[in-house]
């Protein structure tokens, strides 16, 4: 039985911060290039949903047996974050959902569990990377999500076969964060580099021995880790410096932490030919090596949202003050309006399909589509004569719109649009990842899963529209 990658997808947020904007404001720090910035209405969970949707839209995906959510920045503790992803993807309750959160090695933990499973497993990995204003992390890191479905040939065609894995674990102080901090601390970098170099060498040796491969058999290496200096010297440490590396995305989007290995892998797979051997090296409190070989099936794999396209489509006009506000470093005066209410538990639970998966209804009599689902038909008045219809993947057109300067929003003004879905159905929703001057009647939009706001510690996840770009 061939086991490996069935599908993958990535979500790179729309906004970019020019690193030079940091220095321009603070007088120091910053640098060249841009970093990807999760919008004010995105978090690791919402970005994971978007990455998963990108993956599931790329192939005939089976229903997985489990969904694992990996992040250093989980939106909730105590409450399982993966459940919102599970709900947004409209998976049946038999599908397990669990979190592997806290450390940047969590993604490897999920990957290891999935590869050693026999069933299809969906992994999502996402971080909202923060650093104190002026810090190296603030400039160098970035926000993104990746999703990968691991499975076997019986589930769907394996596009990259799993050849082997090695993991070396070692306790040492390199990067840490106390729960509740919105930034990380790091030890002096040369120490970490020296430790990582040894760990990488060891992991590579074990991997080559177990797989009976050598550096000459590797077509591309994909190296990730939050220790930039150690990542730069890892190829040499692993003895693969002669092998072409995957394109370095850090200049354009930053180092995306937990997600970065999978983002870089996705970028490599987007352009990979059959029979390419890829070596993944991840540096996080140890070193993990995974080797995959692409199959003939990759030829038929069509990424719904290629990484290069998302990297290129970023909007780098984000002001540094807005970035700081979004991340909570700048406490701005709210409008003179009541504090927003959190969604209530019982109605949210009653309406899970609508709220999390954007499931509407279609009257059997008239074929009319309604959002949210309507029990009584608008025409004819038939009661409960409808079927449920998923709307999240259907594009729509703006019928009318407004720009609300008065409404409470974590990032005012609120852009509200009335949209008409292709094939029927109307809904008033927020338009996000868009500037006010982009909105017009006739604008084509698609739906995206967002965190509308947080109140009482409750994250209100729901769907918004974004321009089709």
């Amino acid at each position: 039985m061939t086991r490996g990658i069935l599908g993958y997808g990535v979500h790179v947020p729309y906004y970019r911060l020019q690193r030079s904007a940091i220095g321009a404001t603070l007088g120091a720090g910053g640098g060249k290039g841009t970093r990807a910035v999760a919008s004010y209405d995105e978090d690791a969970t919402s970005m994971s949903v978007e990455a998963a949707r990108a993956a599931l839209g790329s192939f005939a995906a089976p229903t997985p047996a489990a969904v694992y959510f990996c992040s250093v920045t989980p939106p909730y503790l105590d409450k399982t974050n993966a459940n919102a992803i599970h709900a947004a993807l409209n998976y049946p309750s038999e599908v397990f959902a669990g979190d592997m959160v806290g450390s940047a090695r969590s993604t490897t933990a999920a990957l290891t569990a999935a590869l050693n499973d026999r069933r299809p497993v969906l992994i999502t990995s996402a971080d909202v990377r923060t650093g104190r204003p002026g810090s190296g992390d603030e400039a160098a890191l970035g926000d993104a999500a990746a999703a990968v479905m691991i499975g076997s040939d019986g589930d769907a065609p394996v596009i990259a076969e799993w050849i082997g894995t090695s993991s070396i674990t070692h306790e040492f102080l390199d990067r840490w964060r106390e729960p509740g901090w919105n930034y990380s601390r790091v030890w002096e970098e040369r120490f970490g580099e020296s430790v990582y170099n040894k760990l990488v060498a060891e992991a590579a040796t074990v991997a080559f021995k177990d797989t009976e491969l050598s550096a000459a058999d590797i077509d591309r290496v994909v190296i990730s880790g939050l220790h930039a200096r150690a990542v730069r010297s890892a190829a040499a440490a692993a003895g693969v410096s002669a092998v072409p590396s995957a394109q370095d995305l850090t200049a354009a989007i930053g180092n995306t932490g937990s997600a970065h290995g999978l983002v870089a892998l996705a970028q490599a797979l987007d352009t990979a030919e059959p029979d390419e051997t890829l070596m993944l090296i991840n540096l996080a409190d140890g070193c993990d090596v995974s080797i995959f070989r692409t199959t003939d099936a990759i030829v038929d794999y069509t990424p719904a949202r290629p990484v290069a396209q998302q990297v290129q489509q970023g909007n780098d006009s984000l002001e540094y003050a807005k970035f700081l506000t979004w991340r909570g470093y700048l406490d701005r005066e709210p409008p003179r309006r009541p504090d927003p209410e959190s969604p209530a538990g019982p109605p949210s639970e009653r309406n899970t399909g609508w709220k999390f998966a954007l499931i509407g209804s279609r009257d059997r009599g008239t074929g009319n589509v309604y959002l949210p689902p309507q029990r009584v038909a608008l025409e004819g008045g038939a009661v409960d004569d409808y079927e449920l219809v998923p709307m999240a993947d259907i594009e729509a057109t703006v019928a009318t719109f407004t720009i609300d300067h008065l409404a409470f929003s974590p990032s005012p003004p609120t852009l509200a649009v009335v949209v008409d879905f292709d094939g029927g159905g109307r809904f008033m929703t927020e338009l996000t990842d868009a500037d006010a001057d982009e909105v017009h009647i006739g604008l084509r939009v698609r739906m995206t899963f967002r965190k509308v706001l947080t109140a009482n510690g409750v994250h209100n996840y729901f769907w918004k529209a974004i321009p089709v770009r």
Partner: protein
Amino acid sequence: MGSRGIKDQVAIVGMGCTQFGERFDRSLDDMIIEAAHAAYDSAGISQDDVDAFWFGTLGSGTSGLTISKPLKIDYKPVTRVENMCASGSEAFRNAAYAVASGAFDVVMAIGAEKLKDNGMSGLVGAQVPDDGTKTQITAPASFSLLAPAYGEKYGVEPDTMKAVMARIAWKNHYNGARNPRAQFQKEVSIETICNAPLVAGQLGIFDCSGVSDGSAAAILCRAEDAYKYCDNPLFVKALAFTSGPGAGPLDPDYDYTTFDEVTRCAIDAYEQAGVTDPRTEIAMAEVHDCFTPTELVLMEDLQFSKRGEGWEDVMAGTFDLDGELPVNPDGGLKSFGHPIGASGLRMLFECWLQLRKEAPEDRQILSVDKGKTLGLTHNLGGRPGECVSFAAIVGSELG
């Protein structure tokens, strides 16, 4: 089955209305006492003569106790009603039906709202616990949806739309400047209106009605008893109310250039009153100009203008104080202010003044002298696509 109406069965024999505005010096109780006693005095009666009460408010109090305690009502029926921004009209409508039924001889409809004590900008509504999936936009944003849709449908450029909206605000400020009870008693130039900070969409602050405190009241009795109290009563010609399926946000056929509820409500009201050509038969109209595009669309829904031509009529001055059909001669919600529960009764108060030629000289409409005897009041609550609508027609003559 049918909406039969109660034409000429019920009369208004007294009315009262407080000054509207930021009444930081007056409590809700103060304003209720002031409006109620002004109405009693106007009808020449005492509170003991009133057999039952209807009280409209959106959120300034619950139950009949809200008025029976401050007014010291002596163990009489008090009904507290709420129908969003039409709450005051709703109190009047139900009070009129009670009189028409013969259940009571003399009743009072009173509306009041205290909005300015909460320290917030704009209107604040109570929130029912929900699943967090409703797009939370403010009232001006909801009504601003009308402007681009109207412009798109009828080929009116955004600059022209802005000018039309400004013309409506200018007119209502002009009228309000001649109304000593109004919140804003000041004329405002078109230029100032157009250059004001934006609140939502194309709406600037002058496109929005005044958030206001106030109270207004009416005394009603059977038509045959009217002249016992008053030499020149007003007679109820029509009372219409519609609440629909709220189809707008669900139905792509809804185009945000009309209020279906208002269109239906107006048809019903005109049928009850026997009005066939509203534009020429009605002396004046008080309409729900919560925001300037609302008034524009209402001119068409109430059949004062043909579809797509309302904006031209606005610009031609048709609805000005000295125009063919004066609309909101008291300044409307825009200038008089909008203390929700009081507004419907405030509109009737202007009909009470104008149709009986008791309005201040500088805003007394001329159409009354031309033999026109009918006034229309219109209230809506909600937002485009999902609202409740009220329309009344009152007249100074029987028949």
